[in-house]
């Protein structure tokens, strides 16, 4: 298996992906695209966990189970976030974060 690929390559790849997600989180204004940036960030963290698990502690399974739970948390987060987004769209008829500035009618 993974001969010839140092661990640093995986970590640098995950870093680039993470900060791309951060850039999207800072510049985007649509709520759904912000959610997509968060998914990018979570995904890059999963790559990190698995690379550490495989290269540094191959006799254990902590990293794998942690990323399994991260995926489950990401799924529930996406479900709740999309429910909130649909509710916001019903009230304001927009999901642009700058137009949604009232907490309560």
């Amino acid at each position, binding site marked *: *298996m*993974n*001969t*010839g690929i140092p*661990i*640093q390559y*995986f970590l640098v*790849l995950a*870093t*680039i*992906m*993470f900060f*791309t*997600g*951060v*850039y*999207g989180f*800072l*510049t*985007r*204004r*649509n709520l*759904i*695209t912000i*959610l*997509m940036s968060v*998914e*990018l960030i979570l995904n890059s963290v999963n*790559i990190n966990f*698995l690379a550490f698990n*495989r*290269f*540094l*502690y*191959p*006799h*254990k*399974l902590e990293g*794998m*189970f942690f990323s*399994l*739970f991260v*995926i*489950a*948390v*990401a*799924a*529930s987060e*996406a*479900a*709740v976030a*999309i*429910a909130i*987004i649909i*509710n916001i*769209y*019903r*009230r304001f*008829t927009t*999901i642009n974060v700058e137009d949604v500035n009232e907490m309560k009618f």
Partner: protein
Amino acid sequence: MAFNQIMFILFSAMIIVFSVLTVTSRKILRAAIYLLFVLVSTSGLYFMLNYQFLAAVQLTLYAGGIVVLIIFSILLTSHLSKKFEHSGWKKNIFSAIASLAGAILSIITILDYKFSATSEVAKEVDMRLIGKSLLSVDYDGYVLPFEVISILLLAAMIAAIVVAKNGGPAKAQSPLINQK
């Protein structure tokens, strides 16, 4: 160059290009499809690391579940032909500076650090081992986080139903209805 190196270069190039396109594309449905490509390539990386179970979970749950959910909500809430307006160049530049500085700092730290290789024998990750350790209470068991995550999923499901359902009284107040 070995085959797995070529595959790694392919997957990482796909991940980087499509994640940049995800955060910069001005059409929202295209951004969602680019996100799908990123997630599929990530599952390819998991296959390269010999975590077949997690790659399958990634494909079914992320690429099959979350992206479909996102596309559904896009279709419910957005006008597909509309392009995003450019956010102000000032915001773009400062966000780019912040993320570039963070990325460069992290990459320098990663390349500088000496990772000590282990001499332990790699454990074969098969389905039986995953199932047993997910339900065992021993030192290597994960039954407590498994229970917690099941409660979290139940709570998220109930919360999603409750939040998405009660839009009743606000509907009359929304300007879209009043215009008709």
